[in-house]
């Protein structure tokens, strides 16, 4: 299957998934593109060994997730923004507002590494906890726990912001 046409087809089909996984995790478009390019270049040499479209999709998810985590660890030297330190806008955006989406993405980006990836896989890729556990090589119970705690934190933060907006 390893032909330039086959590679181009896979690239066109999955580039949104790969780029978005890296982007939502790293919250940096340039770094996300770097990760996505590297993932596709690695795929180019392995395309022959991947047996089906499902296998390709699964491989891409796994490699993107791990490369994004590696990239995030490499830039650990930079100061990280904690969840409580994310600046709240003076007038919080309304539900469905692109600004509200942006704010939520920043809150997700401030989550710790593993919970952040769990949330991204759950809501970007619509994976269930068992699938997320397989991609991240962690127990399903841990995935559920990360998900629950992350949602509680995000909900509290959003409610606080909504409450401040009503006053």
């Amino acid at each position, binding site marked *: 299957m390893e032909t330039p046409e086959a590679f181009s087809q896979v690239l066109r089909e999955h580039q949104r998934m790969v780029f978005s996984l890296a982007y939502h995790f790293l919250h940096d478009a340039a770094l996300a593109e770097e990760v996505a*390019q590297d993932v596709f270049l690695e795929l180019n040499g392995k395309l022959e060994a991947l047996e089906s479209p499902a296998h390709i999709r699964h491989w891409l998810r796994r490699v993107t997730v791990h490369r994004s985590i590696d990239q995030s660890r490499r830039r650990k030297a930079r100061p990280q923004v904690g969840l409580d330190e994310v600046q709240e806008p003076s007038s919080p955006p309304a539900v469905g507002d692109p600004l509200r989406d942006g704010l939520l993405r920043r809150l997700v980006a401030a989550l710790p590494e593993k919970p952040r990836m769990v949330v991204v896989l759950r*809501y*970007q890729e619509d994976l269930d906890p068992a699938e997320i556990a397989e991609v991240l090589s962690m127990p399903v119970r841990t995935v559920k726990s990360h998900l629950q705690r992350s949602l509680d934190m995000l909900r509290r933060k959003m409610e606080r912001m909504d409450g401040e907006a009503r006053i």
Partner: protein
Amino acid sequence: MNLDDELRSALKRQEPPAGFTDRVTARARVKPAERRSTWQGKLGRLFSLRTLEWATACAVATVLLVGAGGEYRRRQEGERAKAQVVFALRMAGSRLSFAQRMVLELSSGRTAVPAKKPSAGEERQ
């Protein structure tokens, strides 16, 4: 809208930056050897065919030079040994002739003062 829906909206897939496909395709066209990281590239270049050819030529030249040097030294030693043998033979010859002269004089009944023993300089001549 609940938090689940808000998260789905916020984390929906996005298009990569413009030109992404072209950039990936261009990098994929580059041979893997040229894409290697620095240390891998250096290692690869170290063992490239051209380098191996040069290394072989240098090794052969070194062996030839060392061999020629050894041969020259052996010849020099041979010349020196030959000169020493010639000198030793000359010395032995002059002493023999001196002894012969003495024997002849004694056998002829003459009691003469023995001829002066040849010096090293005379022997050499």
